[in-house]
């Protein structure tokens, strides 16, 4: 056994141990979360579970397999429809515990993905993206016309409590639905992680990087893509099944192009290069959709800005921003970054408050009643009929932006320093490609 082999084995053991602890932590957190939150919190958490499973499934394509799909909600939706119909069957006396619904939704998504994937995965890139888009439009349009399966505009509804109880568990209150979603979230995440470490998962990475080359190591790129696509369709269907149980309705908007766009946004904002990226994206987007949308009408505008900002400034997503610090962390240099970051936060916060306030004031001026000139911005009461807040927030924005120009080089220098040291001291543990 060589030196390397020994290192690898040792690392592998440590890694597995850490992973086990991590999965345990993940499970405990999922179980414990409802204890510290409200009804609304539980509703949000359930949504996050569904969104996360779907976004993770989507990233099996985009992040892991390099396939950009504009129509992945098709498999989510079809899985959902199948689940709803299963619920109806159960209501009519077919004895299946409804906690298994997502599995059924998954199988349906899998079959659909296999049928469509068998021709759409022949190519990657723009052609694949456009086929997925065309299919999504087709399926969404058919969903309105074919009433017997899709229920038209109204969609299909059912009742989750009609089936036989599963060990006394009937999914009546929201909290039971949360635990149902959480368990499936855990299982699906585990399975998808498992997939990413399997030969098929590794090959998906290979075909993403260089499809031509995979032919010359004995694999058919189309088949690799198809395997990923089918697996992704399965998990999308699972997510659709959880959704069907939570809301007891599935409609065409579960599978239209807008739904497909949303999941892409989630995965990308979270970071498609990392396994957990989509989960973070799902959390952020769900919070925007539920919490921020309750605070401001402009939340979609902010979502758009966040997305464009991510594409331009942080192509590795929010997770990428965090992962930028692994080198510094390994080098125990994180502490040196605190001061420059705090310094950077100052103008960033100023610019953020300034710009957001200007947007909000503009929107308030257009939308609100005359005489309703006062509004609350960041805990400050503002009267928009006077010139003061307009000038003030403009100045704040400009000041913040100017400050950023000054501070960014400083922050960058300290970041470089924290990471550079590492290359000198420990060149082997550099840049683990972690995809």
């Amino acid at each position: 056994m060589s030196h390397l082999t020994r290192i690898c084995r040792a690392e592998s053991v440590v890694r597995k141990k850490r992973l086990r602890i991590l999965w345990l932590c993940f499970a405990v957190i999922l179980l414990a979360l409802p204890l510290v939150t409200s009804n609304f919190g539980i509703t949000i958490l359930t949504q996050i579970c569904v969104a996360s499973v779907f976004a993770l499934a989507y990233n099996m394509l985009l992040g892991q397999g390099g396939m950009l799909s504009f129509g992945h909600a098709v498999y989510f939706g079809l899985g959902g429809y199948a689940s709803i119909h299963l619920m109806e069957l159960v209501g009519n006396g077919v004895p299946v515990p409804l906690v298994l619904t997502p599995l059924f939704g998954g199988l349906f998504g899998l079959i659909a993905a296999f049928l469509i994937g068998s021709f759409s995965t022949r190519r990657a890139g723009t052609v694949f993206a456009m086929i997925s888009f065309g299919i999504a439009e087709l399926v969404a349009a058919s969903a309105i016309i074919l009433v017997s399966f899709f229920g038209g505009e109204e969609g299909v509804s059912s009742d989750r409590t009609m089936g036989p109880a599963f060990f006394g568990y009937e999914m009546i209150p929201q909290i039971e639905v949360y635990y149902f979603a959480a368990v499936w979230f855990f299982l699906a995440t585990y399975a998808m992680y498992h997939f990413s470490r399997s030969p098929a998962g590794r090959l998906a990475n290979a075909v993403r990087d260089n499809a031509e080359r995979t032919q010359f190591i004995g694999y058919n790129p189309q088949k690799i893509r198809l395997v990923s696509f089918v697996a992704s369709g399965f998990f999308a269907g699972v997510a659709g099944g959880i959704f069907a149980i939570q809301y007891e309705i599935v409609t065409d908007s579960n599978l239209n192009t807008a739904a497909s766009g949303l999941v892409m946004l989630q995965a990308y904002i979270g970071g498609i290069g990392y396994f957990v990226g989509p989960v973070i994206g799902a959390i952020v987007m769900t919070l925007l959709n539920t919490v921020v949308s309750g605070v401001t009408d402009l939340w979609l505008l902010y979502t758009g800005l966040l997305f464009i900002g991510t594409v331009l400034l942080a192509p590795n997503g929010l997770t990428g921003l965090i992962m930028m610090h692994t080198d510094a962390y390994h080098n125990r240099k994180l502490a040196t970054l605190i001061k420059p970051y705090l310094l950077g936060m100052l103008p960033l916060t100023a610019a953020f408050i300034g710009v957001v306030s200007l947007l909000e004031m503009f929107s308030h001026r257009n939308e609100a009643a005359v005489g309703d000139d006062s509004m609350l911005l960041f805990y400050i009461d503002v009267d928009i009929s006077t010139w003061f807040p307009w000038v003030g927030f403009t100045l704040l924005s400009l000041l913040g932006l100017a400050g950023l120009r000054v501070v960014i080089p400083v922050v960058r220098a300290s970041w470089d320093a924290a990471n550079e040291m590492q290359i000198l001291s420990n060149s082997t543990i550099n840049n683990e490609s972690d995809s």
Partner: protein
Amino acid sequence: MFETIIFSLLNGLVYGLLLFLLSSGLTLIFSMMGVLNLAHAGFYMLSAYFAYSISIHLGFWYGLLFAPLIVGFIGAMVERYGLRKVHKFGHVPELIFTFGVAFLLEELVQFVWGRNQLAYNKPEILEGSLFTLFGADFPIYKMFMLIVSVVIFIILLSVLKYTRTGLIIRAAVGHPNVVGMLGHNVPLIFMVTFGVGTALAGIAGAIAGPVLGTYPGMASGLGGIMFVVVIFGGLGSLGGAFIASLMIGLIQTFAIAIDASLSDVFLLMDIVITEQTFMYDIWVTSLSQVAPLIPYLMMVVMLIFRPAGLMGARES
């Protein structure tokens, strides 16, 4: 029957040529840059809004003139400060970026102009009907749209055929690297291309706004159809886009005019479809109901069997 055909033909032609105006810009951008601009319909919408704002202050004709210019400029800036940054990461991030721009444009328009449909009106001189055929009026404005589209098509064609710029563009379609090798300033060409492409969408927006409505949803349906046109016609082929635009325009209008469904076909064969028949809803769905679905079917079938499209010069 005859009058239906004539009018469907005319309406299809107007709609098809509008589609061509839109997709010509998209095709131009794709030819030069290899980018399928998902935000193209967004620029079309933006231009209609600008044209509306200008038209209430200066009049329709100024709107028609300036709105596409403004939108072209904005397009160029989007290329310069956005697209160029993601260009180096490949086509997938480019697609994602343009998707983001499309998303943002729709929100931005609502933020600035509000959510109502705007009363963007035709100018007095183009009101009224041009001629009456079988009792139906053909509006002057539709003829105006037709003429603008045709003029733009001719201009584009002659620029491509007879100018040096056209030569570069035609070279780029088949061999994207050759332009750089010839010593041209590629980033500048890209920026200008994107600007011109979006300005073409801008012209379409400025002339379509008064008839098809100026509202935040005006881009959403058209965006998809536009991709169908460029993909069906062949990515990067102006001629293909022209044929595909007309085809889709005509198919869409004729499909609406025909009320037949598959059950009518069965009836001819003495098979009666009732509510008990298997997959009842498919058989009784009339052609006019599935009209919006046809273009996507065409696109998917084309992509599967001939990804290069009708007259495609190259695959992506």
